[in-house]
């Protein structure tokens, strides 16, 4: 099922004001309902290599599988949606590719990446993440974080050591507790959420949310929802105006219409003719 009619997706990535190169990688495809954003780390160009591998593994493998299968189908072995399994398995696959490259090439030793990936299907979104790249949702007036960072700071917030308000004063902002490519295996966190027409989803690297307060990010998305390209460039501009100390990447996904998967034999036949 082609989601071009139901989804509008834009994405931008920018090195920021301080870093000489961009270690973030993004890709998105409205037809398959896919958005992937990765924030690489590691010396020299290794960060770019890691985030690049992650993004290309997810995009190519998921597209390939969706040529023949639908994400809302149930996986025979686990009764989970194919979409969920695709995200989880391919984050693990990317993990192994990066880990093996890092093991075999000394200049890539220790490289890794965070990732956040969304797959939109059947009026839902499955989102997988590892590390501190995030997905936010604007629904009506409410703008909120949907993913929860795998970071020391988030653990401290969860256990009540530090309040959310004071967290921005912490010096431990940049410590992630999970990353793709650091160990032989990784456990991505995957959840499925229902979507509503009019929702806007924002995927971003920490270069955005470390530089711009959540309230300002939300206000920008809400005000400029009529022009997603402008919203994306305004977000990057605000991060850079505030110092732009890190690479900054954003992907915005707007739900323009319903995209329920066709049900029953007749609906499948109609959808087969339409495509």
């Amino acid at each position, binding site marked *: 099922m082609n989601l071009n009619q139901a989804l509008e997706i834009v994405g931008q990535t920018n090195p920021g004001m*301080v*870093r000489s190169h961009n270690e973030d990688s993004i890709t998105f495809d409205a037809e398959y309902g896919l958005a992937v954003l990765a*924030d690489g*780390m590691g010396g020299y160009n290794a960060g770019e290599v890691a985030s690049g591998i992650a993004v290309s593994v997810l995009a190519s493998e998921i597209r390939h599988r969706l040529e023949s299968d639908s994400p809302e189908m149930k996986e025979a072995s686990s009764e989970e949606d194919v979409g969920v399994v695709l995200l989880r398995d391919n984050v693990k696959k990317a993990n192994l590719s990066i880990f093996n490259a890092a093991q075999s090439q000394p200049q890539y030793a220790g490289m*890794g990446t*965070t990732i956040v990936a969304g797959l939109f299907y059947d009026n839902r979104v499955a989102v997988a993440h590892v*590390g*501190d790249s995030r997905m936010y949702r604007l629904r009506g007036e409410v703008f909120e974080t949907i993913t929860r960072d795998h970071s*020391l700071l988030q*653990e*401290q917030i*969860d*256990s*009540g*050591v*530090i*309040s959310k*308000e*004071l967290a*921005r*004063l*912490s*010096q*431990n*902002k*940049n*410590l*992630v*507790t*999970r*990353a793709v490519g*650091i160990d032989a295996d990784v*456990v*991505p*966190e*995957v959840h499925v959420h229902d979507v509503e027409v009019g929702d806007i989803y924002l995927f971003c690297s*920490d270069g955005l949310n*470390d*530089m*711009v*307060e959540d309230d*300002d990010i939300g*206000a*920008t998305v809400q*005000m*400029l929802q*009529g*022009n997603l390209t*402008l919203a994306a460039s*305004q977000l990057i*501009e*605000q991060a850079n*105006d*505030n*110092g732009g*100390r*890190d690479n900054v990447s954003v992907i915005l996904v707007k739900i323009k219409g319903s995209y329920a998967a066709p049900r029953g034999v007749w609906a499948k036949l109609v959808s087969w003719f339409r495509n």
Partner: protein
Amino acid sequence: MPAKLILSMDGSVIKEYPLTKERTTIGRKPHNDIAIDNLAVSSEHAAVITILNDSFFEDLNSTNGSMVNGAPAQKHFLQNSDVIEIGKYKLKYLNDQPTQTSSADFEKTMVLRAPVKPSAASVVPVADSGAKFESTTQYNATAPKPASAAAPAAAPTPVAVIQILNGPNLGKELELSKNLTTLGKPGVQVAVLARRPHGYFITHVEGGSFPLVNGSSIGEQPHQLNDHDVIELASIKMEFYLKN
């Protein structure tokens, strides 16, 4: 470089204590890491818990209490240059982390190689990150900065105002107090005014035609506004000017 506490009394420095331990104790008895032999100090008066680059002060129900930055404090999330007072003694907290733009390399995301539990959604308790916390109360810090810690160093942009020049709202003024302000009617024509460190910019958002500035179309690109420019949007004219 680890953070440190500098012990002083009446303005003269007594000793420096680097915060290398997870728990640094302060009290009158000699077994404390920072021992202060004074009767106003309880035998186990307070502790400072350090987790990587962050330190937290906690008064251990001392008889005479503790102050941080002049206010009584039970628990406090220490920030660079905070001053803890115990009796006549002062402990200044110094944490020379590169918080600002000094060195970008220090801010690079790093992986904390703590043993991460294999279950997917489980919250890893803080104890696994190398710190042991029994208290679940939140720490307070005085005067958290309202704006982003990375506020631009440049002088603040002067406040600007939009005054309506025609139509039913003639004479009305709108102060551009936020970073972004939208003008116009959704679905018809909308423009956004962005306040940036080096001035104000108007950009077309949606609608069939572009906003006019001093009679000419701005197109799709952001256009910087000058004092007393006249904007025309959905046949409403307005003047942009800077407040002193």
